[in-house]
């Protein structure tokens, strides 16, 4: 029996790395700024001041959670914009000061926001090195080190990978950058780290840090770039000087307040939540590996954040499995979605050396703040059944 629409039953949401249920605290914090407190924070009157006060309070909270100063926090429309501003802004600034510094080093399995920005810089004449990652899902530090020299303008390495959840050796890489390319700008995309790790400590060695609100129960279209004092970026848009000129445009106060509230709640509950969710995740992983012969996990379990499980089922087409799971009320994902909504084979798994067939047989199950024991119970009931159904039918 296939697809009856998932709206008819409760949904088990296992796609928190894509986005999360907004936290009630964030929604509540935002509401006044979507209704009566509507001022443009750049204005000079009472209505504007109310907005400006809230904005700067939010900025202070965000800064504190990220271990930054308030004037180092640049609010953006999300992680992608922040990544683009970081890479292109830093590369342009460095090359403007010294035309000989025209190299960019990124991890091979960065988020597309970083990889596409690097590609654009390549078209602009920069030389881009994509540092290899190993089979565990960790960047090869030696390979990255070899790529470092005086000509490097920017190094970008994600704090946690978005598909396999592995924590990257950012502080070791930072040491190497200081030693071999001391004037390079070090950027890290910490979007997937923020829900689970002490992001202030983790990202301390980086000059520029990306975060996103909707991965931690905040609103979509909201993110921030920490730009530490002394780091120069060239703005990627022109306008009225807001956000220290780095991100012109009327600041979205509601988004900033929502980000602050979500980040605040995340920080306060982080340790307890990470322990709770990793227990759920481990139970899910164990249950799936036991129930599905030959199933395997992608990404080293020892270096994974709490919410991530990336699992492959031999001989199962992930796209087929996701359709069946959706029909049974389980939301999961695989690879990355393109603009049409089609799923493309995971560049992350391929970079880790998985064969195309194994990459196509893998799905990503990500838990988050709203995940429950019941979710795992249901998932353990549904997923093995779906896998079994597909494998039993497909060789008929």
């Amino acid at each position: 029996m296939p697809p009856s629409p998932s709206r008819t039953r409760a949904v088990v949401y296992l796609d928190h790395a894509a986005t999360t249920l907004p936290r009630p605290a964030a929604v509540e914090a935002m509401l006044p700024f979507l209704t009566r407190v509507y001022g443009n924070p750049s204005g000079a009157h009472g209505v504007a001041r109310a907005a400006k006060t809230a904005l700067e309070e939010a900025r202070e909270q965000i800064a504190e959670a990220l271990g930054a100063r308030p004037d180092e926090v640049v609010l953006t429309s999300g992680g992608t914009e922040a990544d683009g501003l970081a890479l292109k802004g830093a590369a342009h600034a460095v090359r403007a000061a010294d035309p000989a510094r025209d190299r960019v080093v990124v991890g091979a399995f960065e988020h597309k926001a970083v990889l596409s920005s690097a590609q654009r810089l390549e078209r602009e004449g920069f030389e881009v090195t994509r540092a290899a990652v190993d089979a565990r899902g960790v960047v090869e530090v030696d390979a990255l080190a070899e790529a470092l020299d005086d000509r490097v303008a920017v190094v970008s390495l994600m704090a946690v990978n978005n598909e396999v959840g592995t924590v990257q050796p950012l502080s070791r890489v930072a040491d190497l950058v200081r030693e071999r390319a001391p004037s390079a700008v070090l950027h890290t995309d910490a979007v997937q780290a923020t829900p689970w790790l002490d992001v202030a400590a983790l990202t301390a060695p980086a000059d520029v840090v990306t975060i996103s609100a909707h991965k931690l129960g905040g609103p979509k279209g909201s993110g921030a770039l920490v730009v530490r004092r002394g780091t120069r970026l060239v703005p990627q848009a022109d306008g009225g000087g807001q956000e220290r000129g780095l991100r012109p445009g009327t600041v979205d106060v509601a988004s900033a307040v929502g980000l602050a509230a979500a980040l605040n709640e995340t920080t306060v509950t982080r340790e307890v939540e990470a322990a709770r969710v990793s227990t759920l995740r481990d139970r899910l992983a164990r249950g799936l590996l036991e129930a599905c012969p030959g199933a395997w996990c992608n990404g080293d379990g020892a270096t994974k954040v709490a919410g991530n499980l990336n699992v492959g089922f031999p001989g199962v087409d992930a796209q087929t499995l996701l359709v069946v799971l959706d029909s049974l009320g389980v939301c999961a994902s695989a690879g990355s979605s393109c603009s049409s909504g089609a799923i493309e084979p995971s560049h992350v798994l391929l970079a880790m050396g998985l064969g195309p067939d194994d990459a196509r047989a893998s799905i990503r199950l990500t838990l988050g703040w709203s995940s429950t024991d019941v979710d795992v119970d249901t998932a353990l009931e549904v997923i093995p059944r779906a896998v079994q159904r597909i494998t039993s039918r497909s060789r008929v």
Partner: protein
Amino acid sequence: MSTVLVAMSGGVDSSVAAALLLERGHEVVGMTLKLWGGPSDSGCCSVSDVEDARRVAAQLRIPHYVLNLTDEFDRDVVSPYVDDYAAGRTPNPCVECNRHVKFGLLLDRAHDMGFDAVATGHHARVVHTVRGPHIARGIDRAKDQSYVLYMLGPGVLGRVMLPVGELDKTAVRDHARRLGLRTADKAESMDVCFITRGGREQFIGERAPMVPGTIRDVSGRVVGTHAGIGRFTVGQRRRVGVATGDRRYVVDLDAPTATVTIGSRDDLLRPHVGLEGLVVHDARVPDVVDVQVRAHGAPVPGRLDGTTVRFANAQPRVAPGQVVALYDGDVVVGGGIAR
């Protein structure tokens, strides 16, 4: 009641196919195939077409998915298409897409997903005879697509539904308008879906080497030169590029020597055509069949003799690579690819 996966292209026919199946009480899920990852603004799998399909599915309150088969499409349809042209053949990519993708991979995937059947918006019918289900011409003869489905036989047709083949195109659009579907007045897709700019010659030229060669007449005399045989199709009259008094046709293409042979219309006539990949859906093929050699051409009488079709009257040569579909009245009894 069955559970049916409808391949929704974002056009009016497949939109109405989904609606009709719902009205008949089936459980319906829509799926749009993303087939082409190349630079496509207006092709079959552009974002706006996927969006149309998604919106129609939402209007019909059915789930909708996008299935990425770009690698398989490239392997099974686009690459053979380019190779065929480069080899002097004239392929029909829609036929290969139906064979390998829509009624191959998609049918398999739908089965794995637990669906009973796959439906499309093709203008053809599945008719049930005592000898099992067969493809038959659509009610709207001007839109009939049974030719490009000639390969489907009783083995798979039990799992295929073609609901719009029972309607003429006007009725399809009327039905879409009645339901307020956004695709009701959408223009028909034309041409080859993966060639969205620059035309066929440019597309092939970018993917296969164009070897210049000579143009000869049927006696072997050189009458000109050409930039590559991938630009020609057997039977074509225009663009031979040779200034001769009377009308000239391409009568043969020889890839190994890059030779184009031209001749008169009489030089093109053949009493028969050999088939490769012949499929016969019925143990009892009638002595005389209707032979159709192009998508919208009129059928002519002929006889199947082994893997050769002998025409009652000599016909202009069928370009190698083209489909030869065999009918008994409205019903497809088999077919193959011209040698």
